[in-house]
């Protein structure tokens, strides 16, 4: 890996945002599954 080990200004971790994106996707998939179950 050729990335520098130290972070530069304007390069901050976004772990919370990444987790939020995955949670939103799981919720959407669950809602779509429910929609299909209720209206089929």
């Amino acid at each position: 890996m050729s990335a520098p080990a130290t972070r530069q200004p304007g390069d901050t971790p976004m772990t919370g945002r990444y987790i939020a994106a995955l949670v939103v996707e799981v919720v959407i998939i669950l809602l779509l599954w429910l929609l299909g179950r209720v209206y089929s």
Partner: protein
Amino acid sequence: MRPFDWAVVIVYLTWVVVDGLRRSKGTDKVEGYFLGNRTLPWWTVGLSVMATQISAITLVGTTGQGYATGLRFVQSYFGLPLAMIILSLTVVPFFTRARVYTAYEYLEQRFDVRTRTATSFLFLMGRGLSLGVTLAAPAVVISSILGWSISTTVLALAIPMVLYTSIGGVQAVAWTDVKQMVIIVTSLFTAVGVLLYGITKDVGIGQAMDIAGSTGRLTALSFTFDLRETYTIWSGLLGGLFLHLSYFGCDQSQVQRYLAAKSIDEGRHSLMMSAFVKIPLQLLVLGTGALVFVFYIFQTPPMLFNRAHDAQVAASPRAAEYSSLQQQFDGAFEARRAAARTDDHTGFADADRRLQAIRAQATQLVKDTTGDARYTDVNYVFPTFITTVMPIGLAGLMIAAMFAAAMSASSGELSALSSATVIDFYRRHFVKEADDAHYLKVSKIATAVWGLFACLVSLYAAEQGSLIEVVNRYGSFFYGSILGVFILAILTTSANGIGAFWGLVAGMVVVLTVAFTTPIAFLWHNLIGAVVVVIVGLIVSRASR
């Protein structure tokens, strides 16, 4: 189309060009022209990235899919959020720190000039042809709606787009995309409002959902693990992950946009916008199509939505046969509407099957009469709704949205083609030592030349349905393989230039073989290509030490 609708379209086109040209300030250097001096805010980049993906054919084709089959297509986007996270952690910081103009430039820093040139060449070939199709596909539909010739429609789409892209560069593209996204999303919500208003005159929302659900249109998920089935949750999560990793991580038309962001964080935020918004946006498009289906249960639809073909068949020697089908269609439609109103599920399903069978016969009749063997009626469903149902002014807004979608999808590709041509070929191989003004001039010329090339391809492609299909398939042939090269570059330390190059060749050969000799669905091609490139690349790298 009424005069006021035309006025809306003309005002929109004028506004796009004038504002696009106004945005050309600060593009007096190559970095300003191709990367907006790396100063664009994340939300501009994020909206621009999404606008590039929404082509006019997305608006008409995807709503048509929603009309015909419901929400299933959304599964192909399930891999996108994870892809955005992986790219935010990997390529965004790599490319931004490397201060490159193109994604492929980084490959020379990591491997060698041969690998850079090969991948950039593949990009130019694929995108160069697909840009023509990006213009041709909507031109075919728009020309049918407006009654224009295809060449007039292509020129109406291309001239404003090439003008603001070649003069204003990526800044004009990005800021125009922002406006175009606003127009597209506003018009979709407006259409949903009109549809709900029309539907609730006959039934409540609950009954409308029941009707759509009884036809399977609200069943979005398929858990079947079948490599031949195109849209399943597995092909979406795995195949879609690799498709989106490749598209957003290795395609210059996307990479160029987040290279223009102010910082690594701004680039990441712009990609994460897609992670949050893309699936709901796709559901909005598909849901609009499903609503159009419910709407036309209560309002009489045409038997075939392409009115030009309808007229052609009605004037042909098989007009009597067509007229008989029309009578059967009218009877089946009335039976279906009555069943829907009385909540008679069995009667509704029977009448719906009869209607679909009659439409299939009518479509075949069109194919036989016109010789257009690839005719797909679903592409004309939403345009028909727009031009015959939408109120005055809103129809114009919707047509403007179709122009917006066609131009936003094309302009990003055009700018990316120009940057790869100038940076990866002209400046790297032909004229290595010249001043910035020279490269800027060449960049503008390259943009205009690619624009001209796209017009010529689109004029040809519009007449060749098979060519459109070939070009679309071409994209899936090389996407996964290019992704494999970037995986070798960014995630491994042992791969070298020889391994990356021969891995790329092996990946292309394997994907072509799989595509032409097996029934495996195209979303899987991206995964297969990437895996083959990484394996072969690592083996050859080790052997060549």
